[in-house]
């Protein structure tokens, strides 16, 4: 962290004491914290195949393109989806997924440091893996693992090819949360970016990748 970090002032420390004291005063009736009822579904009752079908359905509903591949057919699909695009590949990604035809770059600039945002903006696509996917909501979780890369990689390029290993697919949100760690940043992705801000008409693709290709692998 840089040297000129601004630390809280004494005045802010006073503010903390004042706020906490206000809150304690506000709670002088000592309201009880209730037991939290967790009767909502926390474990799936579906077959795994049904769960995968549901994920595909929900992803398509939110305008992602979905492909089902095996380890063998995967590279060809990746090659076909990426075409001529200059593609950034996270350090930890399984290299066998990327065919030789793809023009790849790594997250290292001329100075040896990571690429700048502007450099990322000059790229065409990104390929990542993923940590867990929730079928019920059509949500893919990235958890900044080495095969997913830092957050900017899956954000700045306009085309995201995301590989979802079938054993990482669960039905429910609580099941998905069990598989992510808050120690690293988490990004939940449900379809390409979208806005409905203009007369509520949905427009796919504002700032995030406008094309989201999901490959169900297994």
């Amino acid at each position: 962290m840089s040297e000129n970090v601004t630390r809280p002032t004494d005045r802010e420390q006073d503010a903390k004491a004042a706020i906490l004291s206000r809150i304690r005063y506000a709670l002088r009736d000592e309201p009880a914290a209730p037991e939290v009822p967790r009767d909502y579904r926390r474990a799936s009752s579906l077959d795994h195949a049904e769960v995968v079908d549901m994920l595909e359905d929900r992803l398509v509903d939110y305008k992602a393109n979905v492909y089902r591949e095996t380890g063998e057919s995967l590279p060809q699909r990746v090659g076909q989806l990426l075409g001529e695009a200059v593609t950034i590949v996270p350090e930890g990604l399984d290299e066998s997924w990327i065919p030789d035809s793809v023009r790849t770059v790594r997250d290292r600039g001329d100075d040896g440091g990571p690429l700048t945002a502007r450099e990322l903006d000059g790229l065409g696509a990104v390929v990542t893996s993923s940590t867990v996917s929730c079928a019920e909501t059509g949500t893919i979780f990235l958890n900044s693992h080495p095969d997913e890369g830092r957050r900017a990689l899956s954000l700045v390029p306009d085309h995201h090819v995301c590989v979802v290993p079938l054993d990482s697919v669960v039905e429910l949100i609580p099941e998905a949360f069990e598989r992510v760690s808050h120690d690293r940043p988490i990004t939940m992705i449900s379809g390409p970016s979208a806005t409905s801000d203009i007369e509520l008409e949905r427009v796919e693709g504002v700032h995030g990748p406008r094309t989201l290709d999901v490959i169900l692998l297994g």
Partner: protein
Amino acid sequence: MTVVDLGMPGTRIAYGSGNLYEETPFPEHARSELGNQQMRANIGHATHTIRAKRGRVVGELPDWQDLRDAGSAIKQEVGARLPELLEQFEANVTARGGIVHWARNAAEANRIVTDLVRAKGVDEIIKVKSMATQEIGLNEHLEGQGIKSHETDLAELIVQLGDDKPSHILVPAIHKNRDEIREIFSRRMPGTGKTLTNEPAVLAEAARTYLREKFLDTTVAVSGANFGIAESGTLTVVESEGNGRMCLTLPKTLITVMGIEKLLPRFADLEVFTQLLPRSSTGERMNPYTSMWTGVAEGDGPEEFHLVLLDNGRSAVLGDPDGRSALHCIRCSACLNVCPVYEHAGGHAYGSTYPGPIGAILSPQLTGVAAEQNNSLPYASSLCGRCYEVCPVKIDIPSILVHLRDEDVRTKHGERDDAAAQQRSTVSAAREAEAAATGAQPEPAEHPDRVKKSRVPSEMDVLMKGAGVVMSSGKRMALAEKALPLGRGALKPFGGAKWLPGMVGGWTQERDIPVPPSQSFRNWWRKHGEETEQRVARDLGSTALAPSGPGEAPSSSLAGHIEEHAGWGAEAQAVIRARAGQSSGGESTKSSDATSTGEEQA
């Protein structure tokens, strides 16, 4: 339960300031837009569309009510354990390399953010849509300090470039149509020129290109937060467009302003709220992007992270056992979309960052109900109860409205003098402070000590009679409600917008709402009038509930639960009975007690 007054000084209760009430009349252009059919049509279209979508996706979940119960209980737990959770949260954010600041009020938060931005030596920042920063008026404040803040959410950008104000929590530019947006963009975005059409896709592309440069070049970002996790120090931002991800990931410095009520105890609690929020809010199974981060992540995102924890009246809200659940709000806006009053008045009319039913309870509680700018808001409702039915965290808005009306009536009767004086002085002090900061001449605010308290029954009293009489009878309640359209009808002879006679008078006087065309209001009333009868029937304990009338949006899947959850009426009456019991007992309010917390509760 008896609440014991520990005799702590009343100054412990501090009300909020900022964009919680209107300071200045709307610009002329806003006035004409509000009155026009287009605005009404836009709002009507939007609320009905979102409401239908919400109904569909909520209906998909067999355990929706279980999720609501969990959400409500978690939020209650947060309120009850707030001091401890805040300290835990601060410790965890700090342990992970974040820097935590505390702000008592809007002015303090603005100053902290300004100092942080200045310390970075920049005069431009990018911003993610955030209600907290809008509440404190951060953009205006920064502007006054020579710092340009770029809103990056498409709707906020439209609002900002159009020198306008947001009108809806979720879709702030809901009152602008595509032609108006095209006009704003071509005027304010360099290089858009003639090629810009009014196609939403083309307009979105223009915004993408315009903002991409800002994302790549700007080194400081400011965001709000949807949730903060006490046990881990994790922060969460829920969004659609990717502008949030850009702001949270690309800049070197991130400053997040978060209201103290946004905490959740456990990381696992997100499994509840990430289900409740998007379905209630945009009517999607999940919003496109949700970002979570804990402090500073080495090599991934900002190198410096500041968190500003904001009180600004929240502790005062917490101090009222009958009103504190307003703090449970997760800002989904579902209550706006079902509210007949919101649909017809529009978001601007509430004069606060928080419009609609939640605004009608939250704004007056944050500023104190005696702040004249907000004391009429609790009347901006027909108490139809739909807001409670859709609220994902089960905030009993109608009962709180009734409670606040009662507070207001007691204030007007001089029964809450100390509280009232403090609430009024908070407003005038904030006004003077802001004026001092900008070097402007403060609006002459009446000195709180000189504000006359009316001990004469007002028109409102006659209608409300301490709320108890009216509310205790469904018939009479129906009559009171009917006074609303009559009041509107009576507008014409007086030539328009400035005031409405009768019980909604204060509301319009302060807010200057242009009159919605009377014809369509009557049409609307004719269509929905019979719902009053249903409400009456429900209040009287009748179990039969007529199906929604024609012209309703496809009724949400909650329709089947309406009876089950129509119990708010009973709660409201319990509140009223408790109040009635108190006043007949001749118990006077303790003068050291600035809110109602010193009273006996039912």
